[in-house]
């Protein structure tokens, strides 16, 4: 496995971790009685993500890592719908897709 492959896999893993961390943070707002638990879990995941992303940046150019990171918008949107039961309608999905395309184009020449 090449260093680039490791970096891409780590960056992808970070997007999934980010999705769950954000979901936990939102849970803290929805369930104030257990806010500390959810915030603690979210922070723990963010610490792991920081470490993994730091390693990923050593293997990847930021121009590669950054657009991969934009996939966290997909993870967050899916998890918001599935775990938080938010109303993610077609308009919101169109916005997410346009943002991901835009993010890829923005960093394409970086």
């Amino acid at each position, binding site marked *: 496995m090449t260093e680039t492959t490791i970096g891409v896999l780590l960056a992808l893993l970070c997007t999934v971790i980010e999705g769950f961390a954000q979901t936990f943070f939102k849970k803290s707002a929805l369930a104030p009685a257990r806010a500390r638990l959810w*915030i603690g879990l979210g922070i723990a995941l963010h610490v792991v993500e920081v470490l993994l992303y730091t390693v990923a940046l*050593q293997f990847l150019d930021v121009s590669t890592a950054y657009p991969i990171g934009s996939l966290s918008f997909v993870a967050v949107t899916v998890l918001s719908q599935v775990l938080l039961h938010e109303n993610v309608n077609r*308009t919101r999905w169109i916005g997410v897709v346009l*943002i991901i395309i835009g993010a890829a184009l923005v960093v394409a020449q970086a």
Partner: protein
Amino acid sequence: MGSQSRFPAKLIIGLAVAIALDTAVQLLWKTAVSGLPATATLWGTVLAALHQPLFIVVVALLLSQMVNWLKVLDHADLSFAQPITALSYISVTLLSVLLLGEKIGGLQILGIGFMLVGVWFISRTDHVTRPDEPDSP
């Protein structure tokens, strides 16, 4: 401007702060990582990072970001607020041009256009899910 009046001022300010902090973190994080010695292990990277002052600044900004973000989530759906922070991609690009003298190409301008339209689409949706709303359109 009529659409903005639908959103609480606290939400708009919180999102603006989140975008500003995101921008600072992205620019400083890469700078901090660039200063680390090459090492093959995660632990070696962590130890080296602890001795990098700029990395401490990044951590402080991340903590500030988290506090602000929890306030934002008090006022909006996660699937509404989080994609809007993608505007930091635009601010990072523009600051790279303004501060670092980098050039911006046609693809990047097109990308900024896509992102602005994407954020506009999301801003057309309700910022909070009401209990009686269906899950799909």
